[in-house]
C-alpha cells in the first residue's frame, strides 16, 4: 500500500519536474534559437535556393540551376567587386595599428584628456552617411579642400572619386576614419586592464619603448586585438553605405564591392534580378565563412585552454 502511493507520487511529478536541470537552459535559449533560426539560418538557405532562380521579385520564378553562377564566372563587374573587396580587407586592417597608436597616445592622465578622447571617438558616433558626405566634399575636384591642399604643394588636382585608379582607396581612407576611432576605444579599455606590476617588473629588467610595447603590453591586449580584428574584418566586408553615398559604385562600376553589387543587381532602380543577387550573396557568404570559421575556432580554443 505504502509502496504504491510513493510510486504514484513520483509518476505524478510532471515531465518538466523530472528533467528540470536539462530542460531549463534550453527553455531560456529557446526564444533566441527560434529568432536566430528564423532570421539568420533560414535566410542563408533561402539565399542558396534563390541563387538557382531567374526571378524579378514579382512574376514567375524560373529554376535555372547554376546558370547564375556560370554568368558570375565571366562577369567583369563581379571580378572588379571581388578585387575591391580584398583591397578593402587588406587596407581596412590599418585601423588596428592606428587605433592602438592613438590609444597609447591618449592613455595618460593630463588635464582635459577626456575631452580629447571623446573628440577622437567622435567619428565613430556620427553616421557613416555623414562621413561619406563630408569626405565627398573634401575630395571634390573643383572646390574640395583636398585639392586645394594639393595645390599648395604644387600638385593635383586629382579627381579622387571620379578616377577608377584612386576611387577605392579614397573611400577606404574615409572608412578608416571612424574605424580607427572604434579600434582606439577598444584598446583604451584594454589598456586599463594592463597589469601595472608586470610593467614595473619589465622596467626593472630594463625593457623600454618598443620592446616594452611589443613584449609586455601588446600580449596583454590580445583580447582587445581579437575583437578589433573581428569588427574590422566584418566592417570591411559589409562596406556599403560609404560606397553608396560617395560614388554610387562608379565611375563606371569601378568602386563596387560584392555587397554593393549584390544590392545593385537585386534591389536598385535598374536591378531586380533576385537570383543573380542571391548568387553574389552566396559568394560573399562563403568568403565571410572563412573568417567566421577562423573566429569560432580560435574562440573555441581559448575556452578550452581555460
Amino acid at each position, binding site marked *: 500500500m505504502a509502496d504504491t502511493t510513493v510510486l504514484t507520487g513520483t509518476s505524478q511529478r510532471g515531465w518538466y519536474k523530472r528533467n528540470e536541470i536539462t530542460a531549463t537552459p534550453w527553455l531560456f535559449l529557446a526564444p533566441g534559437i527560434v529568432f536566430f533560426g528564423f532570421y539568420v539560418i533560414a535566410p542563408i538557405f533561402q539565399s542558396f535556393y534563390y541563387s538557382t532562380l531567374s526571378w524579378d521579385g*514579382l512574376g514567375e520564378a524560373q529554376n535555372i540551376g547554376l546558370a547564375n553562377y556560370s*554568368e558570375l564566372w565571366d562577369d567583369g563587374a563581379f571580378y572588379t567587386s571581388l578585387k575591391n573587396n580584398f583591397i578593402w580587407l587588406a587596407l581596412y586592417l590599418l585601423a588596428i595599428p592606428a587605433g592602438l597608436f592613438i590609444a597609447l597616445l591618449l592613455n595618460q592622465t593630463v588635464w582635459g584628456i577626456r575631452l580629447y578622447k571623446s573628440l577622437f571617438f567622435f567619428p565613430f558616433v556620427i553616421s557613416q552617411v555623414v562621413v561619406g558626405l563630408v569626405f565627398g566634399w573634401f575630395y571634390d575636384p*573643383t572646390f574640395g579642400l583636398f585639392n586645394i591642399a594639393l595645390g599648395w604643394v604644387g600638385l593635383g588636382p586629382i*579627381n579622387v572619386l*571620379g*578616377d577608377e585608379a584612386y576611387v577605392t582607396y579614397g573611400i577606404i581612407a574615409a572608412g578608416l576614419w571612424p574605424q580607427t576611432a572604434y579600434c582606439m576605444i577598444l584598446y583604451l579599455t584594454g589598456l586599463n586592464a594592463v597589469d601595472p606590476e608586470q610593467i614595473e617588473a619589465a622596467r626593472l629588467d630594463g625593457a623600454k619603448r618598443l620592446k616594452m610595447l611589443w613584449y609586455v603590453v601588446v600580449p596583454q591586449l590580445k583580447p582587445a586585438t581579437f575583437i578589433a580584428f573581428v569588427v574590422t574584418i566584418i566592417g570591411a566586408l559589409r562596406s556599403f553605405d560609404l560606397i553608396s553615398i560617395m560614388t554610387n559604385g562608379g*565611375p*563606371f562600376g569601378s568602386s563596387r564591392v560584392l555587397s554593393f553589387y549584390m544590392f545593385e543587381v537585386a534591389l536598385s*532602380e*535598374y536591378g531586380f534580378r533576385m537570383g543573380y543577387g542571391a548568387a553574389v550573396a552566396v559568394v560573399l557568404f562563403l568568403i565571410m565563412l572563412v573568417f567566421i570559421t577562423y573566429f569560432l575556432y580560435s574562440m573555441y580554443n581559448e575556452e578550452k585552454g581555460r
Partner: protein
Amino acid sequence: MKFALKSSLLSIALSAAMSTAALAGDLVINFDDPNPGPKAGFEAAVEAFKAANPDVNVIVNINDREAHKTAIRNFLSADAPDITSWYPGNRMAPFVEAGLFEDVSDVWEANGFSDSLAAIKPTMTIDGKQWGVPYTYYQWGVYYRKDIYEELGLKEPASWAEEKANCQAILDAGKKCYTIGTKFLWTAGGWFDYLNMRTNGYDFHASLLGGNEKWDSPEVRATFANWKELLDMGAFVDNHTSYSWQESLPFIVSGEAAAILKGNFAVPPLREAGLDDSKLDFYQFPAITDGIELAEDAPTDTFHIPSGASNKENAKAFLKFVTSAENQTLINAGDALGQLPVNANSSVDDDKFLKEGFEMLSSNSPGGVAQFFDRDAPAEMAKVGMEGLQEFMVKPDNLDAILARLDKAAERIYK
C-alpha cells in the same frame, strides 16, 4: 477586434453598394514628386477633384521620386493605393506582366483618349491594351547661355558643323561647351539618345534599344565617332563623373560652361540661380546626318491603377478628371509642374521654354518621339549601357571593349 472586423466588412459592403451610384468612399493616391511646384499643381488638381466629388475621401501620399521607384514594388503587391504615378513603356512592362496594373482600356475608350492622346498611345499599350494614362511630358534640348553666345558673336547652330564651330569658339574663350554630371549615369544616356537619333535616325535608335540591332555595328560606331569629336575637343566639363546633374548646374550658372543638354526640368533651378530669360535660351539639337528626320526625347509621366486597388471606380473617375483639357492646363502650368499638357485641347503655359518645346515637339519632330534611354531599353540593359556610355566619355579608347560588353549583355537580356 471582432467589432472592428465587422465594421470594416460593413464598410466594404457599403462602399461596394455606393460606388455603383454616385462616387463615394476613399481614393488613395501615391504621387512621386515632392518638389514645391509639381506638388502644388498636383494638389490643386486633387482639390478640384474633391470639389467635384465631395463624397470621396481623397488621401494623398507624396513620396520622394527615387524612393518611390523602389517602394512601388512593395506597395503594389502588399498595400496597393488606388492610383500611383509611374512611367510608360519598358518601365511599366514588368508590372503589367506581373498582373499588378489594371487594364484601363475602357477609360481610353469611353473618353476618346485614342484621339486626344494619340501621340502617347503606343507607349501606353501592351498586348493591345492600355495600362495607364499620361498626365505630363516635357521636351529635351540644349539650354544655353544666351549672353555668352552673344558676347562671342555666336548663333544657335543649325547643323552639326556649326555646333562644333560654336563649341570651338567657346573653348577658345576659355570656357567649356557643355556641363554634365554623370555620377548617376543617365545624363550620358541623353547625349547618346540625341547623337544616335541624329546620326542614324529614330527607327534605328528604337530598334537598337529594343534589342534588334548589334551595338558593334557601323551605325553605332558612327554615333560614337561623332561623340568622340566633342570629347577630343574637350567640350565637356572635367571631372563630370563626380557630379550629379544638380551638382553640374553651377558650371553653367557661373559661365564656366555655356550649355547643357537636359530636359525642361533644368529650367526652374537655373532660373532660381539667377539666369533669367535674357541669359538662358533653348535650341533644338541640330541635325547631324543629312536627310535624317529630327526626333526628340520627350519623357512622359503617367498614372496607373494597381490591380489590388480597392476603389477602382473612383480611380477611373480621377484618371478621366486629370486628363481633361482644363485640368491638364492647371497641372502643367508654369507655377505648377511647368511642363507640357498631354491633352491636345489644353493650353500651354505662357512660358518661353514651354512654348518653344511644345512647338518643337508638335511641328519639328517628324522622326518620332522617344521616351528616354532608360525607358526605351529594358532596365538591365539601360544600366549596363549607361555605364558603358560613362566609361566612353572618360576613356574613348575603350570603345571596342565597351561595345563587346554591351552586345554580350544584350544577348542575355533580350533572349
